[in-house]
């Protein structure tokens, strides 16, 4: 019987003092020995609560048993039975609220490090098999369009191509990957992983059309007329929210999406690139999610002397992944909990010079279980900053719904779908990922891509019968 109190195997990481100024990956991954040691902590529970906690039901005990037996390729294959992108989700999933939250080992000590093991299996596979012939059914010459190349679109295109469909993937940016390339920074998710996913798609015969904004250069009706028999909309939720406080229009105030897009997609961190970005000395990031953590850590890496993170509730309520919060603290981000901005101050020539905030206190839990935040009187304070980054959440990208009035959306702009099939109000048009749920997670988007592929294939098969 395993020692039930042994802690999880820690993962090597770059020294915070060094890494806070570079974009190299922070977490270095397990070695084979570490992976085997951690895999041996798994109790192989028959009822596999971890698998039930995974949105795409990865066969967790099975792949971990293979790692323990040093069958690393077997472990990778076990994962990919239900989920195609473990190198990505092993790095970005909020495991602590999903699979690991259900782990029996977590009751007496720490849960098995499922995410790290998932990442290990995927990285091992990629290192051993730089090019891997993906299995594929014979071509059936039925065209399907996938719009948006984030995790939802990548997954749907991949699965449909494997089923033999002729898939065209449309993306408005010049690069494939959605949030995985424009939002999540290199130091958390190296872009070589996304390039590999893109190469896999091409080898499956997927046509990739970047620089193509569906709804502007081609409409859904026109895609149907061109012969696409089904369309999957995975256009994401990138429309940034602002607070509507005074001074938000000043120079030096960014949405997190703009800041991260400049840094990541447009490589502002690399001096060879021409992307302009304000050279900030002191930065305030407003928000408590992954986006806020990424923005704060990028600002630190772009050379800021100090980076403040302002969140209106307490640390316990922060929606960000625990690991990101931990890393951000290690890197010297200064957290201001229970604080809420009320104004951005002007330096007199139209540029931000500070962020005025008030202190908050948490009251009773409301009907949704969230404790409401109340302003404390006379608690105003001002942080002297030259840059303010708003990471307050996003809503679905507006173009598709603006271009197609027949597409039903809810009050928040989320596309309305049938939950079982992901079919929208338009015949032959499906949707999934953040475009449907509003800002959520990579794994939920991938799950939606998978479900849409199955449901599209089912519908097209019945039609051709």
């Amino acid at each position, binding site marked *: 019987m395993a020692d039930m109190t042994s802690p999880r195997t820690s993962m090597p990481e770059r020294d915070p003092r060094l890494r806070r100024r570079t974009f190299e990956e922070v977490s270095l991954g397990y070695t084979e020995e570490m992976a085997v040691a951690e895999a041996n902590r798994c109790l192989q529970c028959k009822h596999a609560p971890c698998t039930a906690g995974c949105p795409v039901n990865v066969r967790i005990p099975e792949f971990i048993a293979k790692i323990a037996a040093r069958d690393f390729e077997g472990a990778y294959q076990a994962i990919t039975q239900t989920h195609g992108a473990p190198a990505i989700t092993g790095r970005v999933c909020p495991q602590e609220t999903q699979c690991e939250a259900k782990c029996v080992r977590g009751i007496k000590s720490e849960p098995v490090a499922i995410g790290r093991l998932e990442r290990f299996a995927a990285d091992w596979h990629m290192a051993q098999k730089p090019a891997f012939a993906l299995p594929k059914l014979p071509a059936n010459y039925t065209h399907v369009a996938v719009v948006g190349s984030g995790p939802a679109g990548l997954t749907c295109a991949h699965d449909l191509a494997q089923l033999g469909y002729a898939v065209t993937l449309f993306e408005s940016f010049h690069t494939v990957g959605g949030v995985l390339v424009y939002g999540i920074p290199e130091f958390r998710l190296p872009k070589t992983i996304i390039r590999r996913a893109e190469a896999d798609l091409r080898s499956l015969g997927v046509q990739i059309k970047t620089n193509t904004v569906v709804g502007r250069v081609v409409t859904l009706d026109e895609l149907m007329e061109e012969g696409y028999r089904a369309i999957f909309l995975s256009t994401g939720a990138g429309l940034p929210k602002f607070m509507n406080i005074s001074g938000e229009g000043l120079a030096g105030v960014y949405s997190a999406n703009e800041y991260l897009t400049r840094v990541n997609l447009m490589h502002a961190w690399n001096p060879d690139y021409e992307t302009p970005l304000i050279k900030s000395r002191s930065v305030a990031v407003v928000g408590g999610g992954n986006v806020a953590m990424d923005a704060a850590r990028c600002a630190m890496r772009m050379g800021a002397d100090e980076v403040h993170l302002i969140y209106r509730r307490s640390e316990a309520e922060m929606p960000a992944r625990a690991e990101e919060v931990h890393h951000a603290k290690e890197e010297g981000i200064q957290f201001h909990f229970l604080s809420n901005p009320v104004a951005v101050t002007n330096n007199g020539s*139209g540029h931000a010079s500070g962020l005025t905030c008030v202190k908050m206190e948490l009251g009773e839990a409301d009907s949704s279980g969230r404790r409401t935040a109340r302003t404390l009187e006379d608690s105003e304070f001002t942080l002297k900053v030259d840059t303010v980054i708003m990471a307050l959440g996003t809503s679905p990208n507006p173009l598709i719904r603006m271009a197609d009035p027949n597409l039903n959306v809810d009050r928040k702009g989320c596309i309305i779908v049938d939950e079982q099939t992901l079919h929208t109000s338009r015949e032959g048009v499906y949707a999934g990922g953040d475009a449907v749920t509003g800002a959520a997670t990579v794994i939920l988007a991938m799950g939606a891509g998978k479900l849409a592929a199955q449901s599209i294939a089912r519908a097209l098969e019945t039609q051709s019968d």
Partner: protein
Amino acid sequence: MARIVTKRRLNPTVTLLEIESPMIAHKAKPGQFVILRVDELGERIPLTIADFDSIRGTVTIMYQSVGLTTKKLDLLESGDTILDLVGPLGNPTEVDHVKRAVVIGGGVGCAIAFPQAKFLYRAGVHVDVIIGFRNKDLVFLEGSFRKNCTNLYITTDDGSYGEKGFVTTKLKELLDAGEQYDLAIAIGPVPMMRFVAETTKPYGLHTLVSLNPVMVDGTGMCGGCRVKVDGTVKFACVDGPDFDGHLVDYDELMTRNAVYRDQETAAAEVHRCRLQALSDAAMMGGARNG
């Protein structure tokens, strides 16, 4: 990848590029823009579609070489390619039910005013055009405008060509003389658009201005292009680029547009060597940007 089919200097600082892009040409409407990235290291910059030809499958842009990207564009010749070209973006200018319009262009903004004038004129609208330049050497598109409007008025600041004065001087003169319009469209530097809007306001003349804030994606995902209109935040790329000129917060627009100006200068300095190398290569007829 989009190929340049024509390059023409319109005046010492403004250049026209006709670029092959059948999909965009097919869909473009006056008032819309494209975003381009010259090469892998380049920024994404928005440029208004100055003309389009769905039969030739081309769109035309006109730019003034000011920043690094437009300087790089300037090194390209016909036959060269631009790495990324996205469009058409933004909403077409709304000109339904317009019977008499006055279109006002300032400097390089005339390039953008041109498709508006042409479109309206060909739709049977009475179109008066006022275009203004600093001096005679900078006048461009005169012939094109003449063919596409009812009356053309040219002003120069120093009086070296056309009438001496600003576009607003001429505009006020026409309005005072009792000319009736149901739409004014003003395109040019922000201060000029503001003055046009101030001029038309007392006459209650509906005035559209075409805004060109900083942009990244052009699809509503970054908010970099946000402008304040009538006290509310709008994203120029999806809600505009045309807005009611009487409601725009011009001060905010101007400071936000100037955010990267110092950096542009610094960057231009840093990248000068690279530009020099590129232009040397181009002069030698050697490595073309591809």
